[in-house]
């Protein structure tokens, strides 16, 4: 069900499709190679280190620090109605990185490189189809409060 992932989705079919199902259930998953144990976020079906194609999902905490960000004013097709939006890149505590929008719990003036953040699973409630994503929130923000009701 990877077509659920992202406001616009260009890759509905992937070997890590279950990522989106987990995200809908409020879990942020990375991948772990079953042969050598190397981990990845975002998840990857095929291992960079040992080339194995056997992997399993594991839940990541979503805790991380902000590496960089930008407020996008000139938007591409599919994002006109949410412009402007702020995109950030976060180094995750367990390794790996996420790129995502800032959520409502982080006011724009507070955004600073190096700040602690939480990557939180979210659903677009205003859209008819299931559309899931994740956002960058204050540390400690959980799925049940900010995500579902936010």
């Amino acid at each position, binding site marked *: 069900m990877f077509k659920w*992932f992202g406001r616009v989705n260009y890759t509905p079919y992937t070997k890590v499709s279950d990522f989106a199902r987990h995200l809908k259930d409020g879990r942020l998953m990375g991948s772990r190679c079953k042969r050598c144990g190397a981990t990845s*976020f975002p998840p990857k079906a095929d291992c960079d280190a040992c080339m194995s194609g056997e992997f399993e999902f594991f839940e990541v905490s979503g805790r991380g620090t902000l590496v*960089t960000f930008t407020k996008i004013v000139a938007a591409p097709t599919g994002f006109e109605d949410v412009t402007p*939006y702020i995109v950030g890149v976060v180094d995750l505590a367990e390794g790996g990185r996420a*790129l995502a929008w800032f959520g409502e719990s982080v006011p724009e003036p507070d955004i600073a490189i190096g700040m602690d953040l939480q990557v939180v699973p979210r659903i677009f409630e205003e859209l008819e189809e299931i559309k899931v994503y994740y956002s960058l929130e204050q540390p400690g923000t959980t799925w049940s409060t900010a995500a579902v009701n936010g």
Partner: protein
Amino acid sequence: MTRVGIIGLGHGVFGRRSDATVQELAFEAFREAVEDAGIERARIDASVIGAVPEYHKQRSLAGVVQEYLGLVPKPTWLTEVACASGSAAVRTAWLSIKAGVHDVVAVIGCQKMTELGTAEILALMGRVGEVQWESGFGTTFPGYYAMFAKRHMHEFGTTREQLTDVAVKNHFYGAMNPKALFRKAITKEKAAASEEVATPFQVYDCCANADGAACVILAREDVAKEFSSTPVWLSGMGCATASMSVLRRPSLVGLPSAEAAAAEAYTMAGVTAKEVNVADVHDCFTVAEIMAYEDLGFCSKGEGGPFVAERQTYIGGTVAVNVDGGLKAKGHPIGATGVSMTYEIAKQLRGEAGERQVPDANVGLTHNVGGIGQYCFVQVLTRD
């Protein structure tokens, strides 16, 4: 092993070319290069076309260009590595001569970007990043480089004003280039007043889409010497990649592909960064030029901002950079850009750059980046 010389140079006017098809643009540059070389078309063994296919209505462009240039039945092929497609064309032509397969190869970079309407451009713009994990968040090309800029400012104290210094310099020289899209100098105030695109970038931090073509004709050493007693040589040819995704890039303050390609090119040419007199670097956004100074070793990592602010990259400074206007003022017809860079640096080494001539230019360099650094080609050009 044989050296590869540049024997012909041609360049059309970059801009909104609603007067011409892409093969007509290619012809302008090709005709000029053939005349410049003084070569019979029959002696050209092959052509390589640098272009990015998704901008053209015409599919499989190489064959169409080949026919229009009158080069059928000689071989042709297309190279595509995003905004570095032109340098990939130069590289494969060079490889084919080094391999002993061809003696003379015409390289044509051509692109017509204004065939697409705004809606098509905006749709394409949404897929410049890694589409599985990043594009779903509405990332854009300026957005990625803006994130490099934010990080560069954070780590090294690079300022908003130093970004503008790049744009002001490149427009200053673009005003002197009859082939450039924007032939007008700008002030810092004008740049600062332009619209926001992706913070910290405003309109004047970004290069513009354009239509255009450039051509260089390459030849094996002995053939090159038939056409000139002192041809310009492709002496160092570096090429490297970096991960497509910013999620798998350890550093966001430079392009590892550029550092690797530069090291390879300098070693092959037997020169150091300090010996480079003139360079064309890939300033798709202002910060990209600042990072290029550092990745190429013109200054230390983090010193790129002060380097441009102190006018070290103007003619008369440490190394003249983008004195043809760069992508910023010359325009960026993506497939043509790499070939345009080779054209410009060869012109400089020949001493034919007119009022923007860099005095005593003997060692020149091109730095052509595809995407946000997933591809980088660095060429060192020399003249005996």
